[in-house]
């Protein structure tokens, strides 16, 4: 007997509209109560469902809470609070001889004109006079700042010093100690994290503080102290010190403030009263609860903002606006994620249905409508979804709260309580949506419960509907179309929308596939045959699990194909800087008198050093031509370039970089570019070209051109553009050199001349020196690199820093990518999802198969049958999911290959390639895909086999 009542049974008697609503509400309330008890009774399954849904939703809510909280710490109110600390309750910022007005956060304040407007001028009182204004019943401590210069190695830093008696309890909370402790004597200081990182001085080392001269350089030494710890205050790049460290040090009124503890919290009217006496201050209670009638950072009187005033700060706000196409893509990705969560939770609800089948049948037998039956399942989804949502918010709060304990490490002195903004509720409700979506199909099937079948213990499963498969095929086709359009146009929105359609279509096809597998599996070995047929018989949970695995495999496959194609493109267009194994290092002269630089001596020193550390290494030397040159009193820029190209610095004095195909602009990453003067060894080390005629060319003053386009009629034309101080072109001169072509795809130089080639005057001085070291056979690349680093470092030290290495020594190791980890993680993630989905379904299958296994035992099945059956079930779910996923994933994979696909275009000789939309690189990482399609199911089966007990129920009691 199937219940065939209409969806909403019409009421027998006319019922008033409100009565209908009330009855509806009442029946939901009953269903929810039952669901709540039921969830509690079956704790472990409930926990599982909540955990599945919770994980992704908790990530979202945590991000939201973090962003909100972090925004709060950027607010004026919070920053005012940071300056008050935890012990004081107010802070006096300034004092005047006349009544003043201020913003609630004291970021804006001034004295008042007679007519009550903010004056644009004001006179600070001397520190002692302000001190005298402080009411005697206030407990106060004074803090002030000064500026000094400190040195570390070659560099100097202008920094603030915050001076105050850090032993005073009122200071508590204005510093967050990361390491060591706060100073207690004038000879101790603390640094904040940023300053400590910049100075690179460990705790315990001495620090000399110098005065700042007019140019901001270090002047007289003012005092010396030991760095006793690292502590962050409200201002970064600040030294915390005790009074007495700096001579004559009292601070000016501008830089002095007082931390105050008042007998009772200061309200806005208290502040207004102190304003009348000339004091300007912030108070914790006003910052947390600012007066309603004025903005926190706008000067404000008793009941209204002041009409005008000196520059009011602008409240910072984060702009979350998005382009519509980005929003669409993001929404589609969000839907995909939601779908995945729902699919993962789906099997659990299928079990719930199975477990409650008898209850449902009894409800049905006692007159429950299909709506009642559906409600029974949906209400338990609602309960679990709400629990997951609530837990997600709690977890987010807790994570942000606990994360706050680490705030000092990131340079913050305080971290507020996590902020729960209204939208966090909306984010958390995603959990409810996912749960209800997961329960939707089980609920529909519950609505069709066949009472007699259910009471007899048959498995709940709707009939296979062919139109569903048809719809699925249609969606797959439509999705493929959208993806294809997106792929051709290399445009993300239709790809993501297509992917969503495609994914849904695949899921709708899965029931049909499961059925087909069961029907086609007649020749399979017994356990697999049983597993495939049982999978089809319990189609609902199988479909959910297979779809979950397939969705994960589609994602992984698409990403793998996209990434592999991207890598293929990159490595295809990869232009090395030198031959493999060669170490390059660039050294530049940083001394004050460039004309006194002696590159030959520097290179000789390097050679001597390397002869010891890398005996047998070949060393080539090249120098950059063109650059800055002193021309009379004016500094002019001289750059070599090809005649048809604009001057690289023509626009607003900023260098153009390699964006033009034919012009000789350098990539910002490489010091040598354009025209280079090089010896044979350098030329050979970089290009690998050892032809004698090339050597001869370099020796006889011919140029070697790496870029075919630069060579015309056996000559290369080079232009010298001189710019004046305003960046205007002052003069252009061109010279032609005899040249020959050597088309090597090398990033960096485009034209190479020999050491003896004389170039016209005004071509600028030879600049950066590049050494190319070919290590002797034997040591591996990285040790040669280390040796070159050491040698150039020693050169820098030996010349007092006049010769410095720019960047690090570079080892040419061919195309490198560190994607293996990412790709491995993708496969592992798919495995984790497959394990989860397949094993939870296998556990259910084992429960359902209990009587069958007992029958098999009676017929003489060996004890291991249960394990074999479990492994086969896991194999069916994971195998079907992975194979479908990998095959289906090739379509979006192709799209991603087009999209991310190395939109790479070679930049021509000497210039790095750059990305262009669309790519023809389509590389399928077969090994990885095989690992997903075959490896993951096998591992899943092996895990199922390992963790299933082989004991099968031998005897059974049928009476």
């Amino acid at each position, binding site marked *: 007997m199937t219940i065939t009542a209409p969806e909403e049974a019409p009421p027998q008697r006319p019922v008033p509209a409100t009565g209908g609503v009330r009855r509806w509400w009442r029946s939901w309330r009953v269903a929810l109560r039952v669901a709540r008890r039921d969830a509690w009774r079956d704790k472990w399954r409930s926990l599982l469902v909540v955990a599945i849904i919770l994980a992704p939703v908790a990530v979202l809510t945590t991000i939201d809470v973090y962003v909100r909280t972090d925004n709060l710490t950027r607010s004026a109110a919070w920053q005012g609070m940071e300056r008050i600390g935890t012990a004081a309750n107010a802070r006096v910022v300034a004092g005047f001889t006349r009544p003043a007005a201020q913003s609630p956060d004291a970021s804006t304040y001034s004295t008042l004109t007679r007519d009550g407007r903010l004056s644009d001028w004001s006179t600070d009182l001397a520190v002692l006079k302000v001190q005298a204004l402080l009411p005697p019943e206030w407990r106060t401590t004074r803090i002030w700042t000064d500026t000094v210069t400190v040195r570390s190695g070659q560099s100097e830093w202008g920094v603030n010093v915050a001076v105050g008696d850090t032993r005073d309890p009122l200071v508590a909370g204005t510093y967050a100690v990361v390491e060591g402790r706060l100073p207690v004597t004038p000879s101790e200081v603390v640094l904040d994290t940023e300053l400590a990182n910049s100075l690179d001085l460990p705790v315990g080392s001495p620090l000399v503080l110098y005065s700042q001269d007019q140019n901001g350089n270090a002047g007289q030494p003012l005092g010396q102290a030991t760095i006793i710890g690292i502590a962050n205050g409200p201002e970064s790049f600040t030294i915390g010190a005790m009074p007495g460290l700096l001579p004559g040090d009292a601070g000016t009124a501008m830089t002095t403030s007082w931390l105050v503890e008042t007998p009772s919290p200061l309200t806005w009217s208290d502040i207004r009263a102190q304003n009348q006496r000339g004091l300007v201050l912030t108070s914790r209670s006003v910052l947390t609860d600012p007066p309603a009638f004025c903005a926190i950072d706008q000067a404000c009187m008793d009941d209204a903002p002041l009409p005008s005033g000196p520059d009011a700060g602008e409240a910072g706000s984060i702009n979350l606006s998005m382009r519509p196409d980005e929003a669409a893509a993001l929404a589609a990705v969000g839907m995909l994620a939601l779908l995945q969560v729902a699919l993962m939770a789906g099997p659990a609800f299928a079990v719930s249905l199975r477990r409650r089948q008898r209850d449902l049948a009894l409800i049905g037998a006692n007159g429950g409508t299909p709506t009642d039956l559906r409600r029974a399942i949906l209400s338990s989804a609602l309960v679990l979804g709400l629990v997951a949502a609530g837990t997600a918010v709690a977890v987010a709060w807790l994570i942000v709260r606990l994360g706050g304990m680490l705030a000092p490490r990131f340079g913050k002195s305080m971290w507020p309580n996590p902020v729960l903004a209204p939208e966090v509720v909306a984010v958390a409700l995603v959990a409810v949506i996912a749960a209800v979506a997961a329960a939707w199909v089980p609920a529909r099937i519950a609505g069709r419960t066949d009472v007699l079948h259910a009471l007899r213990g*048959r498995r709940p499963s709707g009939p296979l509907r062919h139109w569903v498969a048809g719809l699925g095929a249609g969606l797959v086709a439509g999705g493929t179309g959208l993806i294809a359009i997106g792929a051709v146009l290399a445009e993300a929105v239709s790809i993501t929308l297509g992917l969503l359609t495609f994914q849904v279509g695949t899921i709708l096809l899965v029931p049909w596939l499961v059925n087909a597998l069961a029907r086609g599996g007649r*020749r399979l070995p*017994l356990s697999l*045959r*049983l597993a495939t*047929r*049982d999978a089809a*018989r319990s189609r609902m949970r199988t479909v959910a699990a297979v779809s979950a695995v397939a969705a994960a495999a589609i994602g992984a496959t698409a990403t793998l194909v996209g990434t592999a194609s991207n890598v293929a493109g990159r490595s295809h267009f990869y232009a090395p800087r030198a031959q493999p194994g060669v170490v390059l290092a660039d050294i530049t002269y940083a001394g004050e008198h460039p004309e006194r630089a002696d590159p030959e001596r520097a290179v000789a020193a390097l050679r001597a050093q390397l002869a010891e550390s890398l005996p047998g290494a070949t060393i080539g030397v090249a120098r950059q031509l063109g650059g800055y040159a002193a021309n009379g009193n004016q500094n002019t820029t001289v750059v070599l370039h090809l005649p048809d190209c604009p001057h690289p610095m023509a626009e607003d004095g900023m260098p153009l970089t390699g964006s033009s195909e034919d012009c000789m602009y350098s990539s910002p990453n490489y010091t040598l570019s354009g025209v280079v003067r090089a010896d044979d060894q350098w030329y050979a080390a970089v290009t690998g070209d050892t032809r004698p005629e090339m050597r001869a060319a370099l020796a006889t003053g011919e140029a070697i051109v790496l870029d075919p386009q630069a060579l015309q009629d056996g000559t290369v034309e080079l232009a010298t553009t001189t710019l004046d101080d305003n960046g205007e072109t002052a003069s252009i001169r061109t010279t032609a050199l005899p040249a020959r072509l050597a088309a090597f795809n090398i990033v960096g130089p485009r034209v190479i001349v020999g050491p003896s080639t004389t170039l016209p005057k005004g071509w600028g001085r030879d600049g950066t020196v590049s050494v190319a070291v070919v290590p002797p056979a034997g040591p591996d690349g990285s040790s040669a690199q280390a040796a070159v680093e050491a040698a150039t470092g020693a050169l820098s030290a030996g010349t007092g820093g006049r010769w410095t290495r720019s960047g690090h020594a570079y080892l040419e190791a061919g195309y490198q990518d560190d994607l293996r980890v990412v790709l491995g993680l993708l496969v592992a993630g798919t495995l984790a999802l497959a394990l989860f989905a397949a094993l939870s379904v296998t556990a259910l299958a084992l429960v359902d198969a209990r*009587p*069958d296994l007992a*029958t*098999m*035992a*009676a*017929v*003489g*099945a*060996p*004890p291991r049958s249960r394990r074999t059956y479990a492994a086969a079930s896991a194999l069916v779910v994971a195998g079907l999911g992975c194979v479908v996923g990998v095959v289906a994933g090739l379509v979006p994979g192709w799209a991603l290959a087009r999209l991310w696909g190395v939109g790479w275009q070679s930049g021509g000789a000497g210039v790095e390639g750059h990305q262009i939309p669309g790519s023809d690189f389509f590389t399928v990482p077969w090994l990885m895909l095989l690992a997903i399609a075959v490896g993951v199911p096998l591992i899943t089966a092996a895990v199922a086999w390992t963790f299933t007990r082989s004991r099968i129920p*031998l*005897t*059974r*009691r*049928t*009476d």
Partner: protein
Amino acid sequence: MSTPNGVSAMGTGSGVLVLADVTRVHGRGPTAVHALRGVSLTVGAGELVAVMGPSGSGKSTLLNLAGGLDHATAGMVAVEDMDLDALSAAQLAAVRRRHVGYVFQDLNLIPALTAAENVSLPLELDGATACIARRQAREALAEVGLLELVDRFPDDMSGGQQQRVAIARALVGDRRLILADEPTGALDSETGEEVLRLLRARCDAGAAGLLVTHEARHAGWADRVVFLRDGAVVDETAYAVTPQAIATSS
């Protein structure tokens, strides 16, 4: 054919199934349940023995011991001269595949397998090739008159058909001991008779049968009836009032 005390008359070695002084105790201490107390019984080839008794008297326990699904606490169980107690779990499974066939009250068949697949299950588990297993299954199904159902799934069969398939499976191969635990319990009387007639026919063809039933009418098909109460044999009739017996005696 048999004496009132048939057990002692038939010595060990002459029966397909021999139980000698078998005791089975579930649990221990004060909660221990004595499911069987010192039961001795022999079933010879061509013989169908009915076991009767109230619910909880140990009938199913007796059958489980006979099929090696359960171990006796004391006493000896032998099937075709093999002492079951001496066999490992795997060997017991092999005994069930090759020597013993079970028929339960219901849920005999695996719903995911067709009739033919259900029947060939013991052969397949024993490593027979699919082809041979299927041929033998067809023969077995033909013998029980269900050849037209070979590719049907159990859910699409009537209860009587399912039980007949189960009997076919119990006999497939060279198995000579059928253990049937209330095989007619879930059937209407007419279908039940049909199933018993089939069982009787198989025994007449040389198999040994042990049939649990609580309907006297069904016990009439047996050569002997053993009555159990509280785990002990309380009575044993040499011959039952079978329709044939009525026919011959009158």
